[in-house]
């Protein structure tokens, strides 16, 4: 029994969360540092996982398996494939930046009763989310995954509802109302999704008799477990619904703008860059592996929805007046790309989708965090309240521009690679959809550049004239992300090498092969 690396990776932040929460009220800064150190240690562990993972090895590696709830056929089964490794790395990578960026977001405004410890709570919750996200990436037991898929809602819920964006237009009461509305909306949407998935999970148990992803997938493959077509489709829909809410896919998206708009920038990053990835990841891992036929059956509908998400999200982003809501809608558009890539059922599409998850995580983090710094300076989320920032805070503007360019997936930056792969992959099988989706890149340019123009350029608004440029802490947050965007844009090979084998596996699960080029097909 070797060292349970995966368990450790998930357990460390969990323990860290408890420890952070236990820090006495007065020792606020200590809590922050503790949380930061824990997240860095987790990152270190994630790196170890990354190194120990052998792309050409078995499909699931570093596996752990223990009996857990026999009666439910549930085992504590962990294991990672390339996709999971990439996303674990992403998560572990982003959390330190989130913590650092949110350094002052949870400082209590006024000293309440000594028992009230918002700061400790804030960072503890972030770590808790990290732990749950990581383990749900690692879980190869459907039930185990489901448990944390659901459980992570609770800390997220408190993060959204408990620590709102202080730069809120309107009175405190209004802000609080908005905030709890957003939090409740987030929770109910995802809970509803989760509960419907619960029904499907139970159904899966009734059909399969256990929850082990590998066993079921294997049984599906060798035909020893065949589901009635309708059963499979219902179960698929049950699972997919939950993931589509989380992802989010049009028309289940409306919780995201509220959640991202009302929460602090770091939490918004946590939502869109980390938590939502679980949804797309789960589509790739569970929907496709457990229900290949049903996935194929649903593909056309899903692709159309994804397409709508892409265009619709982009158009709404153009129409937003609120910076953070704009980014939220942009994310909806991007999630459309990811889902499209997954269900295009081509190697390029799925590799692209996986890269997209990582790249979107980084680029949104960069853009959103800088936006957060901007907002925290001016105290407003409205685009109209800014102008000419570039003149007074050139570095801030510069980083913001890079973030925007990444969001419109400019070649040379990481998102381009994934977006193009998704488009090519989709085009190869569904040319029309691929072409329509391509219009998304024009709209992306529109909303990002409009945002940049309205906020950063033009004559300097008096309110922003005294705006300080990025502080060292903030630069420490942004610079590595930007560097990463460039590196992964120029040399994504290390990432693709990890991801490709896993994607090939998934392709074989759904018994799909890439369409041959016409020239070869002709021969």
């Amino acid at each position: 029994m070797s060292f349970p690396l995966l368990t450790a990776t998930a357990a460390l932040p969990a323990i860290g969360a408890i420890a952070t929460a236990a820090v006495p009220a007065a020792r606020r800064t200590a809590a922050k540092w503790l949380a930061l150190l824990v997240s860095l240690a987790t990152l270190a562990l994630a790196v170890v996982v990354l190194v120990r993972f052998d792309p050409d090895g078995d499909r699931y590696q570093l596996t752990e398996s223990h009996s857990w709830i026999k009666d439910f056929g549930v085992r504590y089964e962990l294991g990672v494939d390339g996709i999971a490794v990439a996303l674990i790395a992403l998560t572990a990578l982003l959390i330190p930046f989130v913590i650092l960026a949110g350094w002052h977001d949870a400082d209590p405004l006024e000293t309440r009763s000594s028992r009230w410890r918002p700061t400790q709570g804030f960072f503890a919750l972030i770590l808790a989310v990290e732990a749950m996200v990581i383990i749900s990436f690692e879980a190869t037991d459907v039930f185990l995954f489901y448990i944390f898929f659901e459980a992570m809602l609770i800390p997220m819920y408190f993060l959204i509802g408990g620590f709102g964006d202080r730069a809120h237009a309107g009175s405190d009461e209004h802000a609080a109302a908005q905030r709890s509305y957003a939090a409740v909306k987030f929770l109910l949407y995802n809970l509803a999704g989760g509960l419907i998935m619960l029904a499907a999970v139970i159904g899966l148990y009734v059909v399969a008799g256990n929850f082990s992803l590998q066993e079921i997938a294997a049984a599906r493959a060798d035909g020893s477990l065949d589901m009635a077509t309708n059963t499979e489709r219902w179960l698929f829909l049950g699972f997919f619904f939950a993931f589509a809410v989380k992802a989010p896919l049009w028309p289940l998206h409306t919780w995201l703008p509220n959640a991202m708009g009302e929460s602090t920038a770091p939490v918004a990053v946590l939502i869109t860059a980390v938590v939502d990835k679980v949804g797309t990841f789960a589509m790739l891992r569970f929907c496709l592996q457990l229900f290949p036929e049903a996935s194929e059956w649903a593909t056309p509908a899903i692709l159309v929805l994804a397409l709508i998400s892409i265009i619709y999200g982009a158009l709404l982003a153009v129409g937003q007046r609120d910076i953070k809501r704009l980014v939220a809608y942009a994310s909806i558009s991007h999630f459309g790309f990811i889902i499209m890539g997954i269900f295009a059922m081509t190697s390029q599409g799925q590799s692209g989708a996986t890269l997209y998850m990582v790249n979107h995580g980084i680029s949104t983090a960069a853009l959103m965090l800088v936006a957060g710094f901007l907002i925290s300076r001016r105290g407003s989320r409205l685009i109209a309240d800014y102008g000419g920032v570039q003149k007074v805070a050139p570095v801030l503007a510069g980083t913001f521009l890079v973030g925007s360019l990444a969001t419109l997936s400019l070649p040379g930056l990481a998102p381009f690679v994934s977006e193009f792969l998704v488009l090519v992959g989709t085009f190869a099988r569904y040319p029309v959809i691929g072409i329509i989706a391509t219009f998304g890149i024009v709209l992306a340019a529109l909303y990002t550049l409009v945002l940049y123009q309205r906020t950063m350029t033009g004559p300097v608004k008096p309110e922003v004239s005294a705006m300080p440029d990025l502080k060292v802490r903030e630069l420490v947050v942004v610079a590595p992300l930007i560097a990463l965007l460039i590196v992964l844009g120029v040399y994504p090979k290390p990432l693709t090498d990890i991801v490709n084998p896993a994607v090939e596996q998934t392709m074989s699960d759904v018994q799909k092969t890439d369409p041959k080029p016409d020239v070869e097909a002709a021969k």
Partner: protein
Amino acid sequence: MDNLIALLVAAPLLGAAVLLCGGRRLDAVGHWIGTVLAAASFVIGAVLFADMLGKDAEHRAVGQHLFSWIPVEGFQADVAFQLDQLSMTFVLLITGVGSLIHVYSIGYMEHDERRRRFFGYLNLFLAAMLLLVLADNYLLLYVGWEGVGLASYLLIGFWQHKPSAATAAKKAFLVNRVGDLGLSIAIMLMFTTFGTFAFGPVLEATGETGEGTLTAIGLMLLLAACGKSAQVPLQSWLGDAMEGPTPVSALIHAATMVTAGVYLIVRSGEIFNAAPDAQLVTTVVGAVTLLFGAIVGCAKDDIKKALAGSTMSQIGYMILAAGLGPIGYVFAIMHLVTHGFFKAGLFLGAGSVMHGMNDEVDMRRYGGLRKYMPVTFVTFGLGYLAIIGFPGLSGFFSKDKIIEAAFAKGGTEGWILGSVALLGAAVTAFYMTRVMLMTFFGEKRWQPDERGNEPHPHESPKSMTIPMVVLAFGSVFAGGFFGVGDRFVHWLEPVTEHTHGHPPIGATAVTLSTVTVMVVGVGLAYLLYGRRPVPAVAPRGSLLTRAARRDLLQDDFNHVVLVRGGEHLTRSLVYVDHTLVDGVVNGTAASMGGLSGRLRKLQNGYARSYAVSMFGGAALLIAATLLMRAV
């Protein structure tokens, strides 16, 4: 030796990185760093050129594979370069003109506190442009393609505090994005057709697929070219792009970037050769644009906008030539190079004029400047003679060949295209003469501006005039150097192949008519602007003139259809999202609450009514049980 190719790109890229990340501490030396690295790149290019000349025509194309960029199952994108005669031509043009303009900018941007960043952007542009012309596959070309777009965005909007500049920059980027749409779709088509998008395999395999596919690819590439090279219908951004500093207009929006479209088409020659329809469309676009640009050029009073119009129309010539296929490719490139020289020269001249006139751009406020800035006058004048195709100067050789080729296309098409090209030549002569006269001849028309300080026209510093002189040399002799003995044709033939075209009316006839229409144009302009004084405020002018002043209403069209329509669309979508999509959910929640409110009324607190419900329940239970048995 081949490994130097990467350095071509690396040098300016390094410059960009250093200058942009360097921070204020580099302000003092920034422009020197930028200029040196640009020049370094030129030197490397020259070395490679010498090396290339050393080899015989067949073995001149060399390549360098750096690393595998995006390796995914069935999808291989490499970072690899290919340097053949075509690329080399561009390398020399880009680095050469680029370096000159760096030098020019040292003086021109002297008083701008953000000069370091300006040079950073310029270097960034050089790097991207070189990547574009050196890439050995379409995806990498796409990177350069968007890279130059970015650089152009940053430079047009360099004076960001001016809303007009910021808007122009955004517009340029967006319109280009529409073009990029074409490029990416073309790449996707190539991938699904050939399973690759590297130049070599694709262009060799064109024979193996249907004409339909190739036409589609060709048209998509053309769309891309239209975006980048400001061809109708995507030309609207170029005029606004003049908001950028003049060196930028000279380098990017005259000499190099805007010609990328031509490069793309010539580079993809095999595809177009196999897709006549695509070629036809290309020629039409070129013909339309060359007239369009020329007409716009006639109406503009803003010197830069006038020159922009002329750029548009000159590139129209190139596209037209490129659309003609093997008989035109070489001349497209040749005109591209000569145009690079004289148009850059003209822009630098314009910049020099503005420099002396407190950045006044309205030609109606100029007049008689030849006395005040002789060097500018001479260089500008030479450029002017070159562009109107004065016999012996470069423009003459290249443009004449294109017109010839157009006629040589044969059939009615040939006649139409040819005569359009001729007409364009006449108009060119007209508007350039107009610019010349309004700027340098006649009596001075400038007054003190609103702040009361009257401009004191003066010659520009050496750092500005020297590049102008060099470019003037180019404008004078390049054409001859290339044209005589078809030197340029032989140079490019191995890459683009060349078939000699025979115009129905004979080459000399074409040449003569070219010269005559040129004379006519000049004369007409002289009658209108040379003989009588130019009014300081523009007369209302004919309908056509007014339309032309507004870029033939193209922007108005865009505004009404795209901008307005888009705004309405998004606004209504926001509404829909809020009321409909969100409303459904909130509605369900609300109705739940309502139902709950009604149901709890049953709980009225009276024990007897509870008993009633129990009694009824019992009755139901019994009834149901009996029923179950009954059925």
